């Protein structure tokens, strides 16, 4: 009978970046916030469901985004919730074509009893991430809630940046190539291995990093060749590519042999039976690139320390719009959009 009681309560799957979350946003949030059916020109609003919103200012665009961060455990190999909170917002701005950050906000909600030393460690890590991104936190807010009313710490960051041209997640055209800026699945696998105490003798590290510098480099090298961008966070590359393909009205075919995946991630993925395509990344981007510019884009990416593993992984087709197909080398299969949580609360 469970199908009859679905969806009158918020479940973990509604925050997992997959189909259930998209449905909740469409049915509840868009209904509340999108009052004007005619979105004015010069505005990218909530209905676009892009990485950020944007308002036209003269000949440029002011891009804004906000992101709340909850993760268990708050410290993990390769990063912590503070670094994640800066990278998450900076990367969302960069994905809109706005890598030069004007300013960030930081709101922290703490649970009574949270160790002061942990808070300071998190803040120090945020400072380092800000320096890497060339960004500054210009205002903030602090709240404390009673013990048990919150699990440790929640951090919200918001950010603003100016873009000369917007890059949207729905701009793919048939014939465009798909490039990923580095290895897939590192963040989610590192967090999962830590959380489940998988005592593996493997070097699993989150890739969490602000990548606005990398994106600036590629936008400079090939300013007109980038047709779409999205960072494959929750729901992994599978979810991001589904969204890009369906908004763009194209099909996407991926070459599995070309997907950059570290051996350690591949090993755990075999062990636990989770496809690296479904696993979150926090320092990567998927780019739609005009075919003629692939060489230039790869060269610019690989010249940057955060882009050395960049790879051409797929192609956009007119056929099968909205579908993501994986060529495994043995045959073809669909890459399904993840439904709910593989790993709750990882970013």
């Amino acid at each position, binding site marked *: *009978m*469970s*199908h009859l009681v*679905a969806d009158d309560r918020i479940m973990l*799957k509604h925050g997992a970046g997959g189909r*259930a979350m998209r449905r909740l946003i469409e049915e509840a949030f868009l209904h509340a916030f999108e009052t004007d059916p005619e979105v004015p020109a010069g505005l990218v609003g909530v209905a676009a469901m892009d990485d950020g919103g944007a308002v036209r200012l003269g000949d440029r665009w002011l891009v804004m985004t906000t992101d709340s961060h909850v993760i268990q455990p708050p410290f993990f190999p390769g990063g912590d919730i503070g670094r994640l909170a800066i990278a998450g917002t900076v990367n969302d701005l960069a994905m809109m074509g706005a890598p030069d950050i004007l300013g960030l906000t930081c709101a922290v909600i703490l649970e009574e009893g949270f160790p002061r030393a942990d808070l300071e460690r998190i803040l120090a890590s945020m400072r380092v991430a800000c320096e890497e991104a060339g960004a500054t936190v210009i205002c903030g807010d602090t709240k404390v809630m009673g013990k048990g009313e919150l699990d440790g710490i929640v951090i919200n960051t918001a950010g603003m940046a100016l873009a000369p041209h917007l890059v949207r997640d729905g701009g793919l055209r048939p014939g465009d*190539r798909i490039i990923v800026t580095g290895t897939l699945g590192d963040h989610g696998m590192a967090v999962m291995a830590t959380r489940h105490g998988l005592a593996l003798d493997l070097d699993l590290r989150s890739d969490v990093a602000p990548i606005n510098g990398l994106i600036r480099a590629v936008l400079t090298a090939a300013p007109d060749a980038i047709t779409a961008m999205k960072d494959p966070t929750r729901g992994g590359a599978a979810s991001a590519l589904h969204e890009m393909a369906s908004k763009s009205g194209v099909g996407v*075919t*991926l*070459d599995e*042999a*070309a997907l950059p995946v570290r*051996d350690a991630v*591949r*090993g755990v993925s*075999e062990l636990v*039976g989770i*496809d690296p395509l479904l696993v979150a990344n926090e320092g990567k981007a998927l780019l739609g690139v005009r075919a003629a510019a692939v060489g230039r884009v790869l060269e610019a990416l690989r010249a940057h320390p955060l882009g050395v593993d960049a790879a*051409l*992984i*797929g*192609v956009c087709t007119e*056929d*099968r719009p909205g*579908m993501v*197909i*994986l*060529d*495994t*080398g*043995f*045959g*073809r*299969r*669909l*890459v*399904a959009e993840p*439904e*709910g949580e593989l790993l709750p609360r990882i970013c």
Partner: protein
Amino acid sequence: MANLLEFRDPIRARALADALARATGDVGREVSLMHVCGSHEQAIAKFGLRSAFPRRLNVIMGPGCPVCITDQPEIDEAVVLAQQGARIATYGDMVRVPGTAGSLADAQARGATIDTVYSIAQAIDLARETTDEVVFFATGFETTAVATAAVILAGVPKNFSILSAHKYIPPVMEIVAEMPDTRVEGFLAAGHAATITGWGIFEPFVARHQLPVVVAGFEPLDILAALLKLVELVRDRAPAVVNMFPRCVTREGNRNAQRQLWQVFRPIGGRWRGIAHIPNGNLRLRDEWAAVDARRRFTIDLASLWRHAPSTLARQCICGNIMAGIASPADCPLFGGACVPDSPVGACMVSSEGTCRIWHQYGGVPNLGDVTCPI
């Protein structure tokens, strides 16, 4: 990983796929083959092998998911035991499989204690930590039944017992072979089960039904090579057992494991959900283990559950036909709509070994035979 990659060489895979197309062409008509293992279906779906099969080769997943063929009354027994106060320890998938009047998850919501475990050893640990009666709801084919047998032989805590829903694969192949609607002309046997039973166990079946059986491993090359061999046997009208997983499987199998299995279990007839009554298809504890047999240790009042009629949706579920190989998930009006992994109607959508769940996980199985990635 180097080991795995040896069996995932796309160039050799293409050569095998070409040979498979030729052999199927030689037969000159549609050929239907059945595998009886969820892990085979997982591998076929994950590697996209179906799109590489020749058009006239039909590879059907049979009753190879132990969770799926656990019959409703068996689920009901576990639910009733839980409601009577026993602590039920079982594998995650079993918790969500609907019985006549709900699943173990529903019983848990009403206050029963259900523990999800990854192995029987974990269930034993649980029993050692409590004075409650712990019942391990044991499911799986002969592969997992061996693990259950070994634990029982090693001795279990006084408050521990077994509710066995273990199944035995060889008899169900006989039933499928004899079904009037069946189109199956050969079987792919599961390599891991054959490591225990040995491939020799299929010889009487082949002699009786004149259908070939090929034992297969789980990597893409294993599966393609085994299917090629099977089609060749069909083409040559040469029914035989062929072991294409010799790196693990021998003719005799694991004698020690077989001894333990039959020391603890005896085969009896019983229903497999949605399929049929399977003579010798269920594994139950022998009389000498009555003390650890939950069915003899407790009075299980099943009648209390059976006033409930199955829901309208459940009556539309075609899991049984899918497992018998006479329908596919695409034929089911509920597939992907009313029946999804989050709210499954039938057991095939619950288990990670179930056909419907696997097809759903890999986006259904549309015809992608003509798609290529031109990068």
